[in-house]
Each structure stands twice: as structure tokens, then as C-alpha cells.
């Protein structure tokens, strides 16, 4: 049923005196409102140049992670010759060579895969933790809410990078790709939880949830059918931006020496190795930094554009 | 065939005093990315000292927008005054410099709004906000301004004014907040007060008190009062004259007694039949069919024709009076009565 048809139907019912008009919107307003929200949003998105820049960058990054050989110009990241150590960029080797004389373009390009895997894996864990804890906390209120909120406060109060460093150094997770992703998620889920919790509390008090409850819907059904769909928009915005933040955090942890280790290929390791050569071979820090930044930017831009499209208050 | 120009038609019977406010063929458009919305399409009226003019209409009829245009507080962009003139005590407000215009607001014309809670700044005390009028326009000291604020709060009958002057808007009830707004608006003895739905957000008993207060203040000061409302009861009780607006135009105008006892426009007629009246208990309420017009696409001809029960379409016997194509001008239809309908005489039953 289209929005217009629904409006007409409500209008007919009101004039026919079959309904007071007050309770009517509680029946199907979730799907109607959600539909118009999403169709407005997708129209807005398609008009937003920042969104398209983000999509192009993000798609390029995705391709790079899945098919790095397409971008490496035939070079193998592990084929090195010391005679070319630290050579600056040239027409043959666009990004130059690193200290071991390996083709730097190939190395930077092959670094995308680990970043993508960690970013996606971590965001999934963040979402699962955030949505489950947030929904439980907001829906059940009372003692459950107090307990879960205090636990969230505890994680919130520990600096994000510091927490991840400690957990990685403790060794209980190991040091691989999964370990880094989980470490980031364990200290990064709290904002998602608060977002979901506040949405759940806001929607829980609305008239149409009261109506659904009056009609005998179960708690679980109300939560899944009526409340969570309302939290999708803000969580989606948050998740998109957070992928970028997590990718940056992975590079940071690896740079600090507690994330991925050689022989893994990672932008963080490349920046760390190039750090001491900033004076003589700045390209070693420059290129992985550039690609890392463009990648983070892709997700931030997409998330920003999504927020502008989904939040009508932001519109001019 | 010549038609009377709506902008020059002057309503007899209201020009008793000197006009303080004259609105002449006012046009306001909202120019948005998705198109131009015509909110006010040629509104003219004049207000004399001591007169209460009610502007009646449903939301979207242009009544508030025209008031904001008079105050010079339209959000621009997107709103643009695209034509017409507004004269206050003979001076054209639209050609004044912004600074001169500002000096009219407050001492010349002032305005109160529907929702006093959101219209008062939540972070300043009511005394500060009332006193600001004196400080900004008269350079009064902070201490004297507060004294004047207490006097004004007394005058609008806020109990315990001296002890409440430092309270914040959220600490007052709805009715008291609207009194604070009124105190602020009358602080500098304006010649014209525009009240935009002043009682809509209030309980019925409080509504009556606030309207009584406005009536008393008007009698004491002799200011002209423009009362914007969709409440027929309020109009009936306090207004001298009424202008009914529809789709950004005035469709009917006259004294309240005339218009209410015998409407000359089908829309006014519809409004009268759609509200409960104590005398007509047990009678059936007749809603006006259809939806208010979309201002981005106002119907051709008479804007009301799609909803009109008396419309005549394709009547060969009435050239130039085709409801779907010919826009009816606001014209004199009876002594002291103006209406914008091709068939007002039938509506009036004369």
C-alpha cells in the first residue's frame, strides 16, 4: 500500500466515523514511515556528491582488497632486491621501493586485504554486542538496564586504544587478524549499545507500541517488529563510519607494535618501518598513509551522506 | 467587461479612525529547491486604532505568513515578499532600511505567538526577557528594566510578579507563559498588536482569561489588534471585523455579525456548518469535503472550486464566471460586505 493510499484510507475511515482517527496510525505506521524514510533517503543520497566520492573510493578499496594483483602493475610484494632499497617513486615503480628493495606499490596494495577483513569483522562484532546489549538494556529497563549500563560505562571509561593494547598484549586472543578485530570490538561496542538503547527507549513509549501491546503482541515480537526497525537508520550510519575508524585503529595498533606482525602485510607495519626514514625516504610513510586516509575517508563520507539523508532534521 | 481591482477595494464601515496599518496587495512566496510555493497571493486590509480584525483560516491559508511579513521576520530565504506594500502610520515598511524596520518592531508593531513555551528563550528569566524591550529600545538600565518588567507582569495579572520575575519560562503554566509574552509585546505601548493563535495551545478556561486580558489591554491603550485564529468562537467574541483567508487570499470580509449570521462565500459557509454550536444542539455537523489546497499547485480558477458544493462548471449562461477557470475577485456583494465568489449573491440568498 502506498503512502497516499494509506492516507486516503485513514481519511475515509475518519469521515465515515468508523474510527476516531487517533488510534488509526498505530497499526501500520512503522512500515509506512520506514518506507518513506528510506525512499526519501535514497533519493537524497543519489544527489549527494560526497556520497558518490565515498562510494567510488570504497569500491576501489574493496577491489584492491579482493584482487590486489589488478592494482600492483604485475609486481610481487615479496619479490625484493636490496639494490633498489629506498628508491624514490619513478615511472616504472610508482610508489618506489622500501628498505628491503621491495616494490612499494605492490606492498601498499596488498595491505588493503587485512584492513578490510579487520574492519568488517570488528564492525560485525561491535554491532552484535551493541544491538544485543542495547536492546536488552533499553527494553527491560530496571535492574537489567542498570547492570548493563554500568558495564557499558566501565568499558567506556577505558581509553579505546589503550584497552585494545592491553588485551592484545595479554595474549589471550593471540596476535592474528581475528585477535586484532576482536580486541578492537571489545573496547568499541559501547556507542552502538547506547545508540540502540536510546532508540529502544524512545520508541518503547510511542503510541503505536502501546497499541501493539494492547492488541496482545508479545514482548519479543514488539521488540523485533516494531522497535528495532526504528534503530536501523542511526545504527547503519554509525556502523558505516565505524568501519573507517576501526581500520584506522588497526593501523595504529600495528604501528605501535601490538597488532599484526611480519610477515603480514599491513599499512601500520609499513608506516612504522618508514617512520625512522621520514627525512631520507618520506615516500615510505606517505603512500600507505595516503591510501589508509582515502580508505577511512570513503567510509566517513558514506556515513556522513547517509546521516544527512536519513535525518530530516539536518536538512536545510 | 471590467472587474473591480481587489487591491483598491476599500471596505466601507471600517474607516472610522485613522488607519494605522495598511496592507496592500501583499504577495509572499517560498522559493525552495523543489519549487515555488505561493503562500500569500494579494492580501489587502487596513486596521484602524482600537479595531480588532480577526483573520480566520485553516493552517496553510497564509494568515501567519502575512503576519510575519508585516513584522519583517520571515525566514528569508526561502521566503520572499514578491509584491505589494505594507504601510505603518503612513510609512512603507518594505522600503525602509532594516534598521528603521527594527525600530518599528516593539514600539510600533509587536507580535505574540501561539506556543509561548518555545517562543520564550529557555535560558533567560522572564524578567530579563521582558526588560530587554526597554534596554534595547530605550537604553534603560538593567535595574530599571527589571522594575518595569515587574510592573508589566502585574499589569497582565501574573500573581506575585515581584517574586516570579527571576523565574524561567519552564517554571510557569501555559496561561502564565502567554501572559509573559503579552507583557513583552505591550511593553512599549505598540500601536498594533498581532496575535498569532494566542490561545490555541491553552485550556479552554485559560483561553477565555487570556482573551479577556487582550480585550482589556486594547481598550486601555487603543491599539489595533490583528487576531489570527482558526477558532470561530474567539472571533465571534472579541473581533469587530473578520477577514477569511483561503489559499493565500482573502475570500470574504465584513463585520463579524454580518459574516457570521449570513456568510457570502461557500467556504465561510462551510466553516460555519462544520463547528458545533450551542444553539444548534443535535444538528448534524457538515465537514468541508476534500483537503486544503497544495500551495505549490493552487487550483486554477477559484482556488476553492474543487471542494465547493456550489461550484458551477461549464455553465454557458455565465460567461466569465466559470469556477474552474475564472478567478473570482474580492468584490462588494452587499453593503459593507466583500467576497471573492462568482455566486455570492446566491450564497447570501438575496
Amino acid at each position, binding site marked *: 500500500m502506498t503512502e497516499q493510499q494509506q492516507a486516503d484510507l485513514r481519511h475515509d475511515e475518519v469521515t465515515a466515523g468508523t474510527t476516531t482517527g487517533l488510534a488509526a496510525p498505530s497499526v501500520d505506521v512503522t512500515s509506512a514511515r520506514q518506507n518513506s524514510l528510506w525512499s526519501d533517503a535514497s533519493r537524497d543520497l543519489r544527489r549527494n556528491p560526497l556520497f558518490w566520492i565515498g562510494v567510488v573510493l570504497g569500491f576501489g578499496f574493496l577491489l584492491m582488497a579482493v584482487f590486489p594483483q589488478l592494482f600492483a602493475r604485475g609486481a610481487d610484494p615479496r619479490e625484493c632486491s636490496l639494490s633498489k632499497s629506498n628508491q624514490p617513486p619513478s615511472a616504472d615503480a610508482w610508489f618506489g621501493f622500501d628498505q628491503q628493495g621491495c616494490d612499494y606499490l605492490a606492498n601498499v596494495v596488498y595491505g588493503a586485504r587485512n584492513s578490510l577483513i579487520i574492519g568488517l569483522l570488528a564492525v560485525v562484532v561491535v554491532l552484535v554486542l551493541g544491538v544485543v546489549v542495547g536492546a536488552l538494556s533499553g527494553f527491560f529497563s530496571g535492574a537489567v538496564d542498570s547492570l548493563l549500563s*554500568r558495564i557499558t560505562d566501565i*568499558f567506556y571509561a577505558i581509553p579505546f586504544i589503550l584497552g585494545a593494547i*592491553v588485551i592484545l598484549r595479554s595474549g589471550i586472543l593471540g596476535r592474528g587478524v581475528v585477535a586484532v578485530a576482536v580486541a578492537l570490538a571489545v573496547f568499541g561496542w559501547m556507542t552502538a549499545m547506547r545508540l540502540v538503547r536510546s532508540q529502544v527507549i524512545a520508541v518503547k513509549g510511542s503510541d503505536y507500541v502501546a497499541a501493539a501491546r494492547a492488541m496482545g503482541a508479545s514482548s519479543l515480537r514488539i521488540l523485533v517488529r516494531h522497535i528495532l526497525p526504528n534503530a536501523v537508520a542511526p545504527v547503519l550510519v554509525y556502523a558505516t563510519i565505524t568501519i573507517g575508524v576501526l581500520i*584506522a585503529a588497526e*593501523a595504529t595498533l600495528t604501528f605501535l607494535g601490538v597488532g599484526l606482525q611480519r610477515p603480514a602485510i599491513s599499512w601500520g607495519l609499513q608506516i612504522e618501518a618508514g617512520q625512522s626514514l621520514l627525512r631520507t625516504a618520506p615516500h615510505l*610513510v606517505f603512500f600507505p*598513509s595516503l591510501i*589508509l586516509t582515502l580508505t577511512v575517508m570513503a567510509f566517513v563520507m558514506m556515513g556522513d551522506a547517509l546521516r544527512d539523508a536519513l535525518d530530516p532534521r539536518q536538512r536545510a | 467587461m471590467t472587474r473591480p481591482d481587489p487591491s483598491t477595494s476599500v471596505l466601507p464601515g471600517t474607516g472610522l479612525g485613522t488607519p494605522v496599518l495598511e496592507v496592500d496587495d501583499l504577495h509572499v512566496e517560498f522559493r525552495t529547491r523543489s519549487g515555488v510555493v505561493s503562500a500569500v497571493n494579494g492580501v489587502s486590509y487596513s486596521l484602524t486604532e482600537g479595531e480588532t480584525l480577526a483573520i480566520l483560516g485553516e493552517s496553510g491559508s497564509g494568515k501567519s505568513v502575512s503576519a510575519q511579513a508585516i513584522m519583517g521576520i520571515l525566514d528569508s530565504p526561502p521566503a520572499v515578499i514578491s509584491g505589494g506594500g505594507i504601510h505603518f502610520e503612513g510609512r512603507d515598511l518594505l522600503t525602509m532600511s532594516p534598521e528603521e524596520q527594527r525600530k518599528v518592531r516593539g514600539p510600533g508593531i*509587536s507580535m505574540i505567538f501561539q506556543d509561548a513555551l518555545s517562543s520564550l528563550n529557555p535560558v533567560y528569566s522572564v524578567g530579563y526577557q521582558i526588560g530587554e524591550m526597554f534596554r534595547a529600545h530605550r537604553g534603560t538600565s538593567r535595574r530599571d528594566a527589571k522594575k518595569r518588567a515587574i510592573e508589566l507582569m502585574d499589569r497582565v495579572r501574573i500573581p506575585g510578579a515581584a517574586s516570579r520575575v527571576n523565574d524561567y519560562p519552564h517554571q510557569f503554566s501555559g496561561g502564565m507563559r502567554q501572559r509573559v509574552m503579552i507583557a513583552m509585546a505591550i511593553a512599549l505601548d505598540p500601536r498594533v498588536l498581532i496575535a498569532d493563535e494566542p490561545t490555541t495551545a491553552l485550556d479552554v478556561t485559560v483561553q477565555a482569561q487570556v482573551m479577556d486580558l487582550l480585550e482589556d489591554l486594547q481598550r486601555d491603550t487603543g491599539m489595533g489588534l490583528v487576531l489570527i485564529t482558526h477558532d470561530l468562537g474567539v472571533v465571534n467574541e472579541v473581533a469587530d471585523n473578520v477577514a477569511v483567508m483561503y489559499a493565500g487570499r482573502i475570500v470574504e470580509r465584513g463585520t463579524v455579525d454580518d459574516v457570521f449570521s449570513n456568510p457570502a462565500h461557500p467556504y465561510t459557509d462551510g466553516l460555519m456548518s462544520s463547528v458545533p454550536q450551542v444553539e444548534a444542539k443535535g444538528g448534524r455537523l457538515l465537514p468541508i469535503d476534500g483537503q486544503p489546497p497544495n500551495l505549490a499547485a493552487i487550483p486554477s480558477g477559484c482556488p476553492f472550486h474543487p471542494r465547493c458544493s456550489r461550484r458551477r462548471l461549464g455553465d454557458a449562461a455565465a460567461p466569465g464566471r466559470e469556477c474552474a477557470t475564472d478567478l473570482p475577485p474580492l468584490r462588494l456583494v452587499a453593503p459593507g460586505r466583500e467576497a471573492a465568489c462568482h455566486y455570492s449573491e446566491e450564497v447570501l440568498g438575496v
Partner: protein
Amino acid sequence: MGRYIARRLLLTIPVLIGASFLIFALVYALPGDPIRALGGDRPLAPAVVAQLRDEFNLNDPLWLQYVKYMGDLLQGDFGTDFRGRPVLDTVERTLPVTIRLTIVAIAFEAVIGIVAGVLAGIRRNGFLDNVVLVSSTLVVSIPILVLGFVAQFVFGLQFGWFPIAGIQEGWYSYLLPGLVLAAGSLAYVARLTRTSVAENLRADFVRTAKAKGLPRRTVVVRHTLRNSLIPVVTFIGADIGTLMGGAIVTETVFNLPGLGRAVFDAIQGQEGAVVVGIVTLMVFFFVFFNLAVDVLYAVLDPRIRYD
């Protein structure tokens, strides 16, 4: 208000305990034996190892170790590292560096962020607004790590305006790292201010202020900015607590001997007492500034009443 503060203080206790225990548990789950590592190439005598283990309560179960640790902490004893240096000495040495860095960062954040946000919000969709929007997206997207190196390379090495490491030049040494540390929050403050100003400019009470015939300056400053800056000021206040715990990367890149650097070195050196002590301190700052902000909020916005 007093009761609210008291209640909030009570609520911070489980957070402090929970956070410090979480870190404590993770730190003492560190692999390897720090006591053995202490000896380096020459293994320590078994008797010495046993005595050290006893001294640092390493033979107790984890919860008992924690209780003993907290007991000492409450008496002001942060303990010592394995070499016998008091943890408080480390804090005294490094905290002033972090405080100076935070002051510089907050100053950048507040001044540049608010000015840019106000200019953008007043002329929404104007040229400056777009400049602020685009540049804040860029700044938010650049990882602090990268930003640090770019700043070092451009302003330190190419132009030679600022030192790129250490604190030998006093406050001047803090400008570059302070700006880098502030960058993300600065962009956020600019955006928050912009949104808040633009929203308040459309508020009914601003329309009232115009209808009262107030001068434009008064309308903007008293009736728009005063209201708009409430969320901004509270964000900046809370950010003090965040920045004091979040400077590990900046302090590493610019080689500043601050709290973040000290805790990182302690993690690498498996100095449990130092790690837990400093993290607990950071958590305390975080919680304290958040509470302070809540109180500040009530002062700034009369509608907020905590009872």
C-alpha cells in the same frame, strides 16, 4: 543538586572498580614471567624469585591480588614497579606533560572549532559553511597517526617551524602535537556548533527576539549563541577527560614523555602495577570530567534540574 552529585559519585565507584579490575585481570594474565625477565641473561637465584613473587603477591589468586592492590591504593600507595621505583614517581614525572598537551589541545579545539562552527552555522550553505563541512570531513578521516607524520614532515622538516619531537622548547614544543591531538575533536566541535547554531537560528524564541526589534547583534549573540554553545561547552568539558587518556599515539609520534607513553612502555615491560595505576588514574579523570560536565550543564541550562 548536592544529592545528585552525591548519587553520581556513588555511581562512579563501580565504574572505577570495574575498569581497574578489568585492566588488572588483563595485565596479570600477561604471558611470561616478569620476575624472570627482570634478570635478563643472568637468571636470578630461585630464592630471590620466590621472595619477589611473594613481595608482589604473585602467588595469590587473582581476586586476592586485586583486593590487596586496591587496599594499598586507597591508602595512597600506588605500589612500585619491579625495580622498586614508586609508581607515583612515574605519574609525577609524566602527568604534567599530558596536562600541558591537553591544555594546548583543548585551547585549539575550543577556539578554532567554535569560531569555524559559528561562522558556518550563521551562513548555512554559504561558502564558509561548505569549507568547514569539507575540511571537517577531511580532518575526521585522517588517522591521528598519519596526521602526526604529515605535521612533522611539513611543519617540522620542510618549513622547520616547530620541533618534531621532545619537550625541550617548553610550551612551544606542545603546539604541533596539541594541534594533532585536537584535530578530530576540533572538527567535531565545528560541526556540533554549526548544527546547533543553525538549529537555534530557526527556533521560535529567535523569531520572538527578532519580533521584539532587538538589534541583530543581540539576536545572534544573546539569543542564538548563548543557547547554541551549551552542548558545545559540555562536549569540550567531557573531552578533557578523553584527551587525558587518549594521547598514546600522539605522545609516541612526537616522543613526548607523558602519561600515555608511560603506560604504553609499562605494558611492553609487563609492569602490571604501573599499568593498572595509570589506567585507574585515566579512568578517574574521565569519570570526573563527565560528572563536572553534568553539573556545568545544570548551571548553563536552567531547565536541567537534578533532584
